[in-house]
């Protein structure tokens, strides 16, 4: 619970055993904000550069010195997302040391060969579909920014197919399936077989979305862009 007055506010936790401290309260401005001192809101911004966080006791925190700075124009943020194709995902596991060591080469080779086959067999343009292979255990979090040379004993391969319809994404997933199951690093070696955790391997993820709109609306009346509907229920 937060109690407000003219000089500041007091944070009072309600759960048994919970306690607010100056670090837990002030850390709130760090979370998900690229600037921990200035927070833009409709009609102005909150400036906590000079805020003071003080413990009243073991559980309560008093905050003073944060300042609301009204803006000349009243603005609201407008964000939007749009459909970004349908996705099919597959997973396989590399456990053979030779393949674990050469996983990136193996994955790159599969992408080249499978993309070519999809373009030829389905008559698609290269930009009409996407295939990603993420090597989990090697660099799936950071991609090219990864600085650690991994020495895992196994690698999870997450394959993500994106196309304009669910049926097409699943069909491309089926083209990818035999590569993930059997693709050899060189023609000289025996055909390998890799582990699939799921059968069938192609999993429909349905429609995906991507961020597409980042805009600031200036409003004469704060409510002019919004509509309130009131429903009486008895």
């Amino acid at each position, binding site marked *: 619970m937060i109690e407000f007055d003219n000089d500041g506010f007091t944070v009072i936790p309600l759960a048994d055993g919970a306690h607010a401290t100056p670090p837990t309260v002030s850390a709130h401005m760090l979370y998900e904000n690229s600037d921990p001192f200035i927070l833009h809101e409709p009609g102005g911004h909150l400036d906590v550069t000079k805020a003071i966080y003080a413990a009243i006791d073991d559980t309560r925190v008093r905050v003073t010195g944060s300042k609301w700075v009204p803006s000349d124009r009243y603005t609201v943020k407008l964000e939007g997302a749009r459909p970004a194709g349908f996705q099919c995902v597959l997973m396989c596991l590399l456990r053979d040391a030779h393949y674990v060591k050469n996983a990136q080469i193996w994955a*790159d080779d599969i992408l080249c060969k499978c993309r070519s086959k999809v373009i030829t067999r389905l008559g698609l343009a290269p930009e009409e579909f996407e295939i990603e292979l993420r090597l989990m255990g090697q660099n799936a979090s950071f991609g090219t920014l990864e600085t650690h040379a991994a020495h895992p004993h196994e690698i999870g391969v997450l394959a993500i197919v994106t196309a304009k319809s669910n049926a097409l994404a699943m069909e491309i997933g089926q083209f990818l399936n035999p590569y993930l199951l059997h693709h050899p690093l060189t023609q000289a070696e025996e055909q390998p077989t890799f582990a699939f955790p799921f059968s069938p391997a192609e999993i429909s993820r349905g429609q995906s979305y991507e961020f597409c709109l980042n805009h600031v609306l200036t409003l004469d009346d704060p409510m002019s862009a919004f509509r309130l509907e009131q429903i009486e229920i008895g």
Partner: protein
Amino acid sequence: LANLGDIVQKIRSKNAGPFWLTVDIFCGTADAYDHVIAKLPSAAVAKAFGMNTQDIKRFDIADLHVVKFSLPLTLTCTAPLGRHCWPNCRSKRDII
């Protein structure tokens, strides 16, 4: 050279809206905070993420013993990655 994660209490990262990644380094003590301030120049952080120093934001928050870095995301959150990571089919890398 010590690892940052061994010196400080906690490091956390989070997207801050669709265009920024923010990293909070909770040093835990004034000593650890001073150590981080002395040993972690913004240029080194920028370099690790393949960016220029002027592209990133840095906040040294002494009261909290926190150093915060905010970095522009090279890809907007939710953007499909595929077309950015297609390999060069002609590249020849040696199989180990």
